């Protein structure tokens, strides 16, 4: 099963490499990983999506918790949560039919065309990973020139917060 694990860690040099190293060292899988500082500059928030059975995911959260730089770990998929990923996708758009189709599909997915040249469109799309996958599928891969995805960020619904 796919899990979204949120981690609050000290904003220290080397902290990220400890997390990434742990995953490779213990043969855990990483689907995506994002990391950035929070409103408290001493803390970074890291989100990792991974696939594994209950035993593996339990080990992942326990082993993450053991890292000294890590302050808190939560498996967001255990409760109601919101998941978002940002994608920018550059596509060949060199005739009217294609341009119209990309525009139409982008509207349906509530994306935005953020760059236009005579031969290309670049679309920005935000949503759960599955929505981004669906967008790619809807347009087909033949026109895609480049895809960049931010990796998943997540947050719990309601009043639950991950903080120190």
């Amino acid at each position, binding site marked *: 099963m796919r899990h979204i694990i949120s981690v609050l*860690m*000290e904003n220290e*040099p*080397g902290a990220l*490499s*400890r997390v990434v*190293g742990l995953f490779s*060292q213990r043969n855990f899988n990483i689907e995506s990983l994002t990391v950035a500082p929070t409103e408290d500059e001493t803390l970074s928030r890291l989100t990792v999506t991974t696939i594994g059975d209950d*035993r593996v995911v*339990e*080990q992942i959260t*326990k*082993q993450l*918790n*053991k890292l*000294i*730089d*890590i*302050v808190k770990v939560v498996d967001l998929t255990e409760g109601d949560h919101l998941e978002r990923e940002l994608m920018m996708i550059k596509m060949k758009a060199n005739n009217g039919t294609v341009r119209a189709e990309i525009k139409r599909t982008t509207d349906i997915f509530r994306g935005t065309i953020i760059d236009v040249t005579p031969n290309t469109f670049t679309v920005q799309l935000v949503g759960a990973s599955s929505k981004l996958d669906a967008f790619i599928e809807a347009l087909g891969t033949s026109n895609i020139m480049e895809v960049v995805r931010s990796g998943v960020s997540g947050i719990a619904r309601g009043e639950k917060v991950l903080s*120190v």
Partner: protein
Amino acid sequence: MELLSGAEMVVRALRDEGVKFIYGYPGGALLHIYDAIFTQDDVEHILVRHEQAATHMADAYARATGKAGVALVTSGPGATNAVTGIATAYMDSIPMIVITGQVMSHLIGEDAFQETDMIGVSRPIVKHSFSVQRPEDIPEIIKKAFHIAESGRPGPVVVDIPKDMTTPTDRYEYEYPKSVKMRSYNPISKGHSGQIKKAVDMLLAAKRPVIYSGGGVIMGDASDELIALAKELGCPVTNTLMGLGGFPGTDPQFIGMLGMHGSYEANMAMHHSDMILAVGARFDDRVTNGTDKFCPTAKIVHIDIDPASISKTIKADVPIVGPAQAVLKEMLEQLQAAKTKPSAESLKTWWEQIEEWRGRHGGRYKTDDSKQMKPQQVIEMLSKVTNGDAYVCSDVGQHQMFAAQYYKFNKPNRWINSGGLGTMGFGLPAAMGVKLNFPEEEVVCVTGEGSIQMNIQELSTISQYGIPVKVICLNNQSLGMVRQWQDMNYESRHSQSYMQSLPDFVKLVESYGHVGIKVERYEDLEGAMREAFAMKDRMVFMDIAVDPFEHVYPMQVPRGSMRDMWLSKTERT
């Protein structure tokens, strides 16, 4: 407040932490620190002949005392030579501080002379690591390093210090912190009472209980609590390789080590038990054998300070996270307060079964089919001559298993071996580390002619500091454990497992100024051993010729259950 340079702060902080000895080897990046060592008398430096030995000395001190040992190595090759020692400590959860020199800050990343990214290299084998960025942080970093290394589940901590952090002319106010607080690190201090209650109820209801205890009892200083609990329950106790000495080896409730080379009765008792109380042990693959066949009728209570050790390989029915000492203490209190007692009748039946197993195969080896001395006989003699009281520091291989099986450890912290990593070359420096700190105690290195040659250069360190350890070398002229596997699985094709061109060990140690004794006949063994131990202030190397064809038994059949064992070259369960 006193003004000190970074280099002086390193040494002063070690002094203020109560460190008596540090083990190390100088080099360019450490010259300022070595100069600071020269100008004081509080911390004594022991110059090894290879950095690996420095780490093993520090490690063994920690195993004997529970306090972190300290090694000091220079950047680049000095640091990488320490890697095996760090990994050894990591696998066995041993507190250790390894201070590594680093090139000047402005050179980092430029492939400077003797530069290695030691934080990166050591990352998977440390509990934590620090890179010093500002000299004034040194006291706090060292305090944190000790705190992290020694608390919770212990482990090695690397402190990487660029040379410019120790410049003698840059001086800062020095104050050693009394304590440290870290929001991201709060080791647990007691177990969950509700979980302990569940475990107690299960223990009271159990008909065939076994206590399976490991290194967590030794490092967690919980031997007394374990003994008290076992006495209250009246059940059998087995120890892991790392847990030997946690329960007295001569106590009738002790049924030996368990696992791959565990005793017949311990493995049988585990397999047939209905309740396993695991304390400070981690269900390692050398213990469980095939996990899908592991102890099919047993409910499992698992006490460990590291939640990640619980249900990692074998699912626990009742997990209890906490330090062994505190949890066992509370468990005993709850047991004593309970209205019921364990069923005496069930226990009696259980013990009859165990005694039958013990009588059938317990602790036997054959001496009649060969004129040569058996390695087991040597260990039994060692146990007799030292009254089971010596610090026994082992290398890795058959001799290690024989020592674990036949030396009767009655006290914790006295069996010092590389269990998790299985580091050949560990034994001699380990014995040196213990002997330096316990000069009045008997300290023995049990080794083989293979392992001893992996750190034999330390004979020179022993001469320099006069460290009178006793080496018991079980010389079978082959890498015995490799050879055993080749006998059992590769139709005795002994690929590269002969030890050829062996030195004359007696002459070799004599050249360093030590005493060498060669023993070839069992009749001479006791006399020679007593003679060796009578030389209190001399290092004595006993080169003992043993049967090269002996195997270690029992030996579990790979991927079988606990009870599937070879009992000799021809008998199987």
